[in-house]
């Protein structure tokens, strides 16, 4: 270990940082004698970079040499950047020493493709195998599966990794072909399929034998770049929704395109990354996963893109005024989740508390309901004055998007009478 390692670490971190995933959730595994570390089911962030993203895992590449030439990637073959390769012993020591100091929750290992996908995958598998079997490391490992790697290697990797991921990057095959001539959908979806097969098989085996090995217990994730191609949010969300229907897919990440290779004219020239769009996509993703929305309710052919000004749930509510107002004292949990300003937590609080008595607006406020939004969509113990049906969706939209309100309006806005 010397300053040389520091240089390599910096170079490889620079290369790995555009991968969004940093979750360390999904597996709970206590310590066992003779091993180092444990994992906690909810995941722990140990630091946050200045862009506000969490640092939970030591996110690093084994090497940033790459034989592919994907237009959106900083490590593409034709880029003139510093290249480095970490040795297995350096990587293992870094991981364990950082882990022991509580800097990280585990390792996120990925790599540029060297020689061929199988050769690269084999090197990755060797590192995690070494870490698990020789150094008895028991913390979290997220391993990138290389597109085009063979099933045998994915099957072996799955025995040591907690989570595996293959990045789709571009939500549309034609665009992918144009930007990354060496890749196609098949090479990405195939390893996903292998991971899924391995995980399902292991679940089946563990029903019969308690000691059967676990296979990628925290499932798999993937990532899509937003704004590098003309694909609409409808394309992106349809693909995510399709992926979420597959049994082991836990997360789809969206990464606002950051122009790393400005010279490439196949890519749009953006002044700044599409951060708002990325945020809206995450909100829509949450609606799919936790709010029981289906993808056609969020985007359809008449609204192929998400509204950047308001969140997707509010936008759905404004398009469906007939569903409102919802009476929070009687409505089903599913319906409560559809009210703008009510989240999963407050919906659960409402459902449990209303057994004890009728709820009023001040109680809802204390439970964390965002009354600024919710007031137009609910009735509770008090009589509603101005719900969306009296005010019209356009007016509600204007009220919620205008930052400053005039004093005169305030009187009209008192939402409830006692």
């Amino acid at each position, binding site marked *: *270990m010397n300053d040389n*390692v*520091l240089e390599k*670490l*910096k*170079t490889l*971190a*620079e290369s790995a*940082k*555009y991968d969004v995933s940093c979750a360390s959730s999904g597996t709970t595994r*206590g*310590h066992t004698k*003779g*091993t*180092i*570390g*444990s994992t*906690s089911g909810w995941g*722990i*962030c*140990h*630091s*946050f*970079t*200045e*862009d*506000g*993203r*969490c*640092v939970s895992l*030591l*996110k*690093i590449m084994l090497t940033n040499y790459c034989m592919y030439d994907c237009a959106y990637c900083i490590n593409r073959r034709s880029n003139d950047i510093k290249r480095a390769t970490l040795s297995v012993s350096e990587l293992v020591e*870094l991981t364990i*020493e*950082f882990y*022991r*100091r*509580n*800097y990280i929750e585990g390792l996120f290992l990925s790599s540029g493709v060297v020689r061929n996908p199988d050769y690269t995958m084999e090197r990755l598998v060797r590192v995690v195998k070494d870490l698990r079997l020789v150094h008895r490391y028991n913390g979290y490992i997220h391993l990138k599966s290389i597109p085009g790697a063979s099933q045998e290697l994915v099957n072996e990797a799955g025995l040591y990794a907690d989570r595996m991921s293959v990045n789709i990057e571009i939500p549309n095959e034609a665009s992918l072909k144009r930007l990354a001539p060496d890749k196609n959908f098949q090479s990405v979806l195939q390893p996903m399929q292998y991971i899924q097969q391995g995980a399902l098989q292991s679940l089946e085996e563990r029903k019969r034998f308690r000691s059967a090995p676990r296979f990628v217990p925290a499932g798999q994730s993937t990532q899509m770049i937003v704004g590098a191609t003309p694909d609409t949010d409808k394309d992106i969300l349809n693909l995510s929704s399709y992926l979420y229907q597959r049994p082991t897919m836990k997360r789809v990440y969206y990464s*606002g395109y*950051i122009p790393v290779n400005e010279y490439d004219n196949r890519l749009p020239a953006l002044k*700044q*990354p599409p*951060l708002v769009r990325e945020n809206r996509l995450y909100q829509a993703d949450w609606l799919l996963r936790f709010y029981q929305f289906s993808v056609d309710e969020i985007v359809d052919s008449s609204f192929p893109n998400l509204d950047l000004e308001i969140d997707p749930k509010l936008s759905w509510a404004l398009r469906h005024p007939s569903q409102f107002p919802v009476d929070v004292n009687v409505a089903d949990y599913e319906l409560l989740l559809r009210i703008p300003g009510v989240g999963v937590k407050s919906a659960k*609080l409402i459902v*449990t*508390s*209303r*057994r*004890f*008595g009728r*709820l009023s607006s001040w*109680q809802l406020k*204390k*439970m964390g309901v965002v009354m600024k939004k919710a007031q137009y969509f609910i009735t509770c113990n008090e009589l509603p004055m101005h719900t969306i049906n009296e005010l019209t969706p356009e007016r509600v939209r204007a009220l919620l998007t205008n930052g400053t309100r005039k004093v005169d309006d305030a009187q009209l806005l008192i939402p409830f009478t006692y």
Partner: protein
Amino acid sequence: MVVFRYDRSFEGLLTAVFDAYAHHEFPDMLLGEADTPPLFFDEMVRIYTDSEKSTRVWNGLKRRISESALYMLPDAWLSELPGVDMLLFKYMRKAIDAPCSIELNFGDADVMELLKIWKSVDKERLRVIQFVRFQKTVDGMFFACVEPVYNVLPLVLDHFKDRFHDQKWLLYDVKRDYGFFYDERVTTEVHLDAKQWDENGRLNEDSAATDELFFQKLWKGYYSSMTIKERINPRLHRQNLPVRFWKFLPEKRK
């Protein structure tokens, strides 16, 4: 106005609940030993902490509310907020008097308030778990300073005992001047007189391991390379990583 004076311990509070029910007299105000009483009051009741009485109250609560709600009480107590004792008293009284468990009645202001306090204590506990940075000492022990807002050190021990079960560590709360030492078997509460660290929790040069500074440098280098310049967002950064933790984090030090 009835005033109860007790020793400001959790057991003392449980004893106060017992005595209140025994004498059918409920306090309007709870005072510690050293607190000045208000100018006018009708009666001052002195509570003598009694483990038998407090155990009876605890067992009684066990029958009335679920375990998860029960353990919110000592956790909320660790917040050390002014007035939390009166809130806990009111909560326990409601729990005892109600015909069925009140723990899910979040429409009730006291139940909601307790949930809020418990949540903020739990959040602080998580933050300590997130932002503890161990430093290796010459004798191979791992040391970290913390300064949590609430007294959450007892709540994080289980996590660290599980995770770092094969290393000796010492967690020290510099604000409350006590800590816990783990010797690879059990944790013991310690109080250190000779402080071998500076105001930023950094170990003195002669007590830190030789490669400690190098690993801090590596971590700092890694951390600064991870930032994507195009996305810098100081507000979000401070929201996720509150400034009060910065002085203990090697990556945030100058």
